[in-house]
């Protein structure tokens, strides 16, 4: 006869409401874990999508994510000729605000040359950039649809393709445009400014500048060795993909990650305290029943089992509710909530540990209840 289940069945409504409360709390804690993982996932989403093995940037910088970087456009040809490099592509990267009908969209605008490294690895609907300029591939997070038009830098772009889950480290959706459009957007002076520059003798406003050149290597080529070769030219810096990923997670999003991580730990601690208090209250509500059980000879393991099983059922049911709720709404979050089986399993393990630890105090209290408490009125 399972006393824990029978007691829960007897007070099912109350138990479910308690589980819902615990579930909401665990859902928030799980969301924090997901957001924490999401920050890293978002930071690496672009580099993973580009599948670049080498990032060539301005000498003395660690661009283009950590610092500003500018290199001449012809660096792409130079990099492409380096032994071990299979393909190279120029990219530009900048944050911009685009005007869509009725709203402004903040996005990370990336320019690349179709057919060369730098574009999205997969298009979820529509197509990639074609030969025509003023086309745009946008991530779904931007809230745009195929055929929509947006205004960027005074030009109107048409959405021809959509990607999924491609965001910048700050959470802004990524949009891809032709490199030439991007260079104009980023480096071309507006006509009045160009005229002033010409009058001042600054010469023409050359725009063949890019933020980085990315490269893919031949199979068997050592990324570190190729990077060393490029660095030796002095005027360029080169990072392997692993170094770029390290830079993104350790430097670019480090503060956000640390903040979220600390908050997650605090939240888990608060969760543990609240669950322990709920278990304690549930146990003390049964003081007379526990005293009666002792008086009729129930061994300690029966009483401890009653408390522990209810604590675990509370935790597991609450976790299931919280996780179901979170998975139902996680796409509504403005930033990525990255929860895979590993994160869910780890959180489940933490919840089980919290329930076991939280029930220790209650079990001790239950075992200290005097059987005499069952007697009298």
């Amino acid at each position: 006869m399972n006393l824990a289940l029978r007691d829960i069945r007897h007070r099912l409504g109350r138990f479910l409401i308690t589980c819902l409360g615990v579930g909401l709390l665990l859902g928030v804690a799980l969301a924090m874990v997901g957001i924490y993982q999401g920050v890293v996932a978002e930071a690496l989403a672009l580099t993973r999508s580009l599948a670049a093995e080498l990032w060539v940037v301005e000498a003395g910088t660690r661009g283009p994510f950590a610092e500003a970087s500018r290199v001449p456009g012809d660096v792409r040809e130079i990099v492409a000729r380096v032994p071990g490099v299979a393909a190279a592509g120029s990219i530009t990267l900048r944050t911009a605000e685009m005007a869509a009908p009725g709203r402004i969209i903040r996005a990370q605008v990336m320019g690349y040359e179709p057919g060369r490294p730098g574009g999205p690895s997969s298009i979820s609907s529509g197509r990639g950039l074609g030969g025509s300029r003023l086309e745009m591939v946008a991530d779904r997070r931007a809230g745009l649809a195929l055929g929509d038009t947006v205004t960027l830098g005074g030009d109107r772009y048409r959405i021809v393709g959509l990607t999924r889950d491609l965001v910048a480290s700050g959470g802004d959706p990524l949009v891809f445009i032709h490199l030439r459009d991007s260079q104009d957007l980023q480096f071309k002076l507006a006509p009045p400014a160009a005229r002033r520059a010409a009058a001042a003798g600054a010469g023409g406003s050359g725009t063949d500048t890019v933020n980085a050149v990315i490269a893919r290597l031949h199979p068997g080529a050592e990324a570190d060795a190729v990077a060393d070769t490029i660095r030796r030219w002095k005027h360029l810096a080169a990072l392997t993909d692993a170094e770029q990923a390290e830079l993104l997670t350790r430097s670019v999003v480090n503060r956000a990650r640390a903040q979220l991580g600390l908050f997650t730990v605090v939240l888990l601690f608060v969760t543990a305290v609240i669950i322990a208090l709920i278990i304690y209250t549930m146990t003390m509500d049964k003081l007379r029943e526990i005293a009666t059980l002792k008086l009729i000879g129930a061994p300690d393991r029966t009483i401890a089992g009653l408390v522990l099983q209810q604590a675990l059922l509370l935790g597991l049911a609450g976790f299931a509710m919280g996780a179901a709720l979170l998975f139902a709404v996680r796409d509504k979050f403005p930033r990525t909530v990255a929860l895979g089986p590993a994160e869910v399993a780890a959180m489940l393990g933490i919840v089980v540990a919290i329930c076991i630890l939280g029930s220790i105090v209650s079990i001790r209290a239950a075992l200290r209840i005097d059987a005499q408490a069952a007697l009298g009125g």
Partner: protein
Amino acid sequence: MAEAPLVRLDSVAKQFGTGEAAVRALDGVSLAVAGGEVVGIRGPSGSGKSTLLNVVACIIAPDAGLLALGDSVVWQGGRYQVADLRSLRRNRIGFIFQFHNLLPFLDATDNVALAMTLAGAELDAARVRARGLLHFLGVGRRAAAMPARLSGGEAQRVAIARALANDPPIILADEPTAALDSERARTVMDLLRRVARERGAAVLVVTHDEKIFDRFDRMVALRDGRIDEAA
């Protein structure tokens, strides 16, 4: 009446507190209850009735004296002579409480069966026996009812069934009729007398309830922790 006592107390003493605040709850109480005998304990508040019951139930350890249950000496020489008191209670003592104390989350059958499963019985067999006991006590039709749906008298009968579940030789009752009207109180006492007679159990009942005094084989009066022979 059976000759060998199932409950025996020799010069049992129990004091609560120390110094000026000390209260002698039991002061050299000697008592023997034989199998088949129904003994009532009465006395004013603070006379030591509940303490006496708790000492017999091995819930409170006496300070001095001897306690024997059946042929086992349970307390002597300032310490318990039995290691597992809860097992002793489970197998040899049945309790009936003032307010029945049925577990609210078990139906009548399982409240009775629980006591048997705690003693090692299989659940199915325990339920069969529990239903039999409920029939024996006249509440067989209420076997599936939850305690909240039982009347006071029905609940007390289920509690008596639970007390009898493991066929204990000793039954202790603490004000078992306090919450019942006269008719039901007498019915409960008649059931206890029947249990004592048919099962040879020693029944010890603490009560204030004068309307059931005539249902005991013997009344023991306590005053200031001593047996009041004059009463």
